[in-house]
Each structure stands twice: as C-alpha cells, then as structure tokens.
C-alpha cells in the first residue's frame, strides 16, 4: 500500500499537536522529520539533533543550504537564536540524562506494552540502531509515528514485537495513518481515528489487544 504525502503530512501534523510550549524535542529519521514543519503557531520548541545541535529551525530556502548545518537525518536546517553546537557525546549526554521532553520515532513494530522495534528486519534489512536506543529509552515521552500496517498489509501493532527490540516498554503514544493510540498501564487505548476511518477498520488492522476510548475523537 502506497501512502501519499498528504496522509504523511496529516500524521506529522497530529504528532506536532503533542508538542507543548517550551519542550525540547528530537525527531527521528524519515517520517518524523516532517513534524518540524507543523508546530502550532506561537508554541516555542527547541529541536535537538543528536549529531550535535540544540535549537535548529526550519528547512532553509533552496540555494541557501549550508552543508555543515544539518540535522541527524542528513537534511539541511537553519539556526535559531540561542542555538548551540557540541560534539555527539554531549548530544547523547543530554539524552541519557533525561533532558529531552519528547522524541518522535519511526517504527517497524510496536508491542502492546510499548515495546519498540525499529532497527532490524531479520534476514532482510539491517540498517543499525543509530541513536534510536538512547532516544527511545531515555526521552520523557516517546511517540511512535508509523503507518498502521506494513507494506504487505500485516499489522505493525502487535501483542509482542517479533523483530529485535530497540527499547522495552518505551512508547507512550502511537500515531498512524489510521489512529492515535495511547499506551496505558492497562494496555493500548484507541483515542482517535483518522477522518473517514472507522473504529472497526482500526481494530481489524491491529493484532494487539486494543481498548476503545468511550468517545474516540477524530483527526
């Protein structure tokens, strides 16, 4: 199933709603990088990049990119007032020390207790974990931003991850093209469905146990 950019932008915009005023946020590679362009107007946010920058801003205009001013996903960014540069040990010091309020990460699979798998498809693809283990394990809030099902239609939200884990019981919220799901101590809770999507569709695309909120919202 191919998903258009419009759907991805809507997912990113929904994730951006979780950014509160004053938060320090790290965005993972791929889909999560889109979140930066959807921060609600007037909300102050400090973006951290684990290569070694605090306080990066929007994508520069074409032709004004600086090859040495890049986020951790390898994309050109700009410098906000108050920004700082440092080496990668300091960047991960901030992360391990618990200074990050929020991280948004991609996912291959999410387990129903919030386990995250996003760095290895056994027998197929071994990209490596990069900084995902530190981010998933140490950020105060972790959002998994992912399509609800894999390309072959198989569920990505499972009772237990079958791929090797990035971090155990790390994810707080799952935002997909179909739904917003909270990871609660009692298990997964469907909070919102995407416009035009029914609760039944979400349930049938999810193999983990999924409770439905009394009055699910729409995004």
């Amino acid at each position: 199933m191919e998903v258009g950019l419009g759907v991805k932008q809507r997912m990113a915009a929904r994730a951006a709603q979780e950014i509160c005023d004053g938060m320090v946020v790290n965005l993972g590679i791929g889909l999560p990088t889109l979140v930066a362009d959807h921060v609600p107007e007037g909300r102050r946010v400090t973006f951290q990049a684990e290569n070694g920058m605090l306080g990066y801003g929007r994508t520069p205009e074409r032709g004004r990119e600086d090859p040495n001013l890049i986020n951790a996903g390898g994309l050109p960014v700009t410098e906000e007032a108050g920004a700082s540069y440092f080496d990668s040990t300091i960047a991960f010091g901030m992360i391990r020390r618990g200074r990050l309020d929020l991280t948004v990460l991609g996912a291959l699979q999410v387990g129903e207790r919030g386990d995250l798998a996003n760095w290895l498809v056994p027998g197929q693809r071994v990209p490596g974990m990069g900084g995902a283990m530190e981010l998933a394990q140490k950020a105060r809030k972790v959002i998994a931003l992912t399509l609800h099902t894999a390309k072959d239609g198989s569920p990505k939200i499972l009772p237990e991850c079958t791929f090797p884990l990035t971090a155990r019981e790390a994810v707080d919220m799952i935002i997909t093209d179909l739904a917003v799901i909270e990871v609660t101590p009692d298990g997964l809770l469907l909070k919102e469905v995407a416009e035009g999507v029914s609760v039944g569709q979400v349930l049938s695309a999810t193999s983990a146990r999924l409770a439905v909120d009394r009055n699910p919202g729409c995004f």
Partner: protein
Amino acid sequence: MSRADDAADPTALQTVAGPGKVALTLAAEPGKVAPLNRALEVFHDGMTLMFGGFGGVGTPPTLIRAILESGVRDLTLIGNDSGFPEVGVGPLIVNRRVSRLIVSHIGSNPVAGKQMTDGELRVEFSPQGTLAERIRAGGVGLGGILVDVGLDTIAGEGKQMLVLEDGVTYLVESALTAEVAIVHARKADRSGNLLFDKTARNFNPFVAMAGDFTIAEADEIVPVGELDPEEIVTPGIFVDMIVQSEGVGWKWAWE
C-alpha cells in the same frame, strides 16, 4: 630562553598580533603541517582507522580520497556510520577496501548492507551514544564505560554486566582506539589546535583524541597564536599532523 630573548632574534621569529594580545611564533615553522603524501605514509593494509563525521558531514574529504587512491585495503573502520555510497567513508566501502566496520548504522549506504549480507563485510553495531562514549573513553585513557542503554535488547547480549552499589545494572562497554584517526576541522593552527564548523563537529573532537596518530584535515591553517585559546575545541596535543583540505568533492544526498 626568556620571551625577550626570543624576540631579540629577528631572523627566526615574528610577532603576530592576535585579538587583544600579542603572541610570538616561528614564522617559517611548519609545525605539524605536512603535505598529503606524507600523511599517506601512515596508512597500510589491515590497519584500524577511526574517522570523524556523521552521514559524511565532517568526514575529511581530501584524506578519504587520498586513502582510496593509495589502494590500501582490509581496513577496519570505526566511526558513526558508513556514509552514503559516494559520501564520507562510503567510497572506501563501495571499492571494497574495508573488511570490518564498527558503527551505529549503515542505513544510508545500501552497498554496505549488501556486503554485510554477502559475508564480505563484518559489521559490529553500537548504539550511537554508546559508540561515541566508547571512542571518547579510548581518547581519554579509560578502559571502558558503564551504560544501561540497550541493556535488555540484543545490543546487550553477550556483554559483561555490572551491578553497582546503587543496585542499578550496567553494561560494560570497552573503550575504542585506533592506529590512525582522521578528522575534518574548519580551522587549525600549526600546532594542531582545532575549531570545527557547526554540525560538522559531531564525532570529530573525540575521534581526534582516540587515534594513536591523528591527522586533521583543515579548511584553513593559521599561525600559532591566531586562535583564541578560549575557543579552541580540540587542543593541539591530540593532533600529530595537519593537512590542507582541498574541499568536499562529493554531492550531498539533499543536493
């Protein structure tokens, strides 16, 4: 010799005015600056080579090109990632000069993934922050680090664990050093003090410390005394050789 004696010998010395101070330096002294062919003498088959950079940003392009052209092979590379096929250390991998990688990811270089699957390239993954700290530990003379990242994942499998007095369990991760480390600086003085450029700093400062022999490729080389001591990121004591950069020859993925 006192400073006054130094200044009294005008044939060997020149006074250089820096911002807000006066420094003395040897005008014709090359310091640690060397031509590229001298740098190539330290590279050999089978060696361990550590590199600065993150997705190729901050990886020294002139040194990578020279290493590629020199034909050395069977390298063990230690650094953040495998670059892109034409960026960073990527060309060394694509041209089969590398037999082993110690990195945090290879996702941006599909050739590295294929060589790994085909059994041509050994790849050892460390979580990025752990890898950075292992290199820093090597650079500052420590034996390793204690970290709880990845403890209950396969990244922790087979690793020694330690329970400290506070009851917390940590993985013991060994320090990393290398025969040669290469870094990319924006500016170097002739004694090897280094400044970096924005996010091109990334792994460079601690990689510079972890080489038995460290070569800095600099965009600009200035006389001793010209850099503000307060702003130096890597003290020159960690740098053994400086070469002039010829600039980035590759095209970035976003271009």
